[in-house]
């Protein structure tokens, strides 16, 4: 039974290291939220105008974005 004092873990909510795709997506979302706005349409337009594509190479739609966030953030 390990004793681990002190427990000082930066990351306590991840189940995996973010992939390069996830990091890029997160950074891009922050950029959009900072520069373009907080609406869902701001996000979709922002991702597409920055030429970021879905994992299957398509432009983002509201539906695919919701589904992807649900997969990554639920």
């Amino acid at each position, binding site marked *: *039974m390990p*004793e681990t*004092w*002190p*427990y*000082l*873990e*930066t*990351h*306590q*909510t*991840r189940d995996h290291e*973010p992939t390069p795709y*996830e*990091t890029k997506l*997160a*950074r891009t*979302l*922050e*950029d959009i*939220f*900072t520069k373009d706005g*907080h*609406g*869902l349409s701001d*996000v979709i337009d922002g991702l597409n105008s920055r030429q970021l594509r879905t994992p299957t190479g398509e432009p983002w739609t509201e539906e695919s*974005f*919701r589904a992807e*966030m*649900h997969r*990554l*953030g*639920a």
Partner: protein
Amino acid sequence: MTLSTRDTADHIYAHGLRNQWHPVVPSHFVEPGGMRKVTALGENWLLFRKADGGLSMLADRCPHRGAPLSLGKHLGDRVACWYHGVEVDGTGTVTSVPGLPGCNLEGKTLVTSLPVREVGGAILAYFGDEEHPDPVELTLPGPLADEEISAFLCYAEWEVPWRFAMENLLDPMHGAFLHSESHTMFAGDTTAKFRIRETERGYFFEKTDQRGVNFDWVELCHTGVDWVDLSIPYPPSAGPGGPFGIVGMACPVDAGRTGVFFWRYRRVSDWQRDTWRFLYKTLIEARHWEVLEQDRVILESMPADADQRENLYQHDLGVVRLRRLYQAQAGRQSKAQPVSAR
């Protein structure tokens, strides 16, 4: 017997107040079928989880000759002491004395077991003293019980007296200085007037002239467990959903160590919720951690007698109030005779 009313008020103030609930460790520290030794309120305890998830917390002391049960063997629904094999179940009852079957210890409840509950990913236990073994009512912090609110627990272990950790939370003004270089607390005035506002469950300590810009208010709540609620704005990069809140609690480990529990929460739903959670795990959690480290560094650097040689000013009223409350409580919980009366 574990928590004694014969302890002095000073001892109780230093090691944590009794007759209330405290958080102990995150739930995931004790796996199904696992056990874990923990220290809380200056005593050693054993957390013990059955395969079906049921959790027990026992004094870490074998009823036979006092060996730590935490060195023993997990037998599914019991623990067997390593020293002479005495078996104790999750209620603290001796189920078997293998060296002397039929021994009159069998069937007796000889080990203190504390009531436990799991809340928001943390284990809470009721630490009654010998005169108050039955748990007081526990009302959960609203933000942790609200379905519209999403929360993440952050847990950390600090080399500081528990009261320093609590006082830090009743001292919002440090946000504008200690955290001036952070992703959340860079804005707002560095001067302020504060007031105390009573509530049914505790009190607010809040700025009178600024809200929603920095760490501008905090509410201390006694609802069976002591916790604080506060709110801090996010920069636009954190997306929709407004500020994030913190529900904070502390586990008094012993006189010099504290487990801190911070649930960062946000009122978000639907895609906004999922997006915040994705950003949190990917980028924001590390930034929150940096802010928390600033608190740890300053608090761990404080001298042990920091609270005995101070020159306080108006911003410290929230701290003064907290100390008075806690010292009075420690006094009421001690039946120790003053030295001169012995």
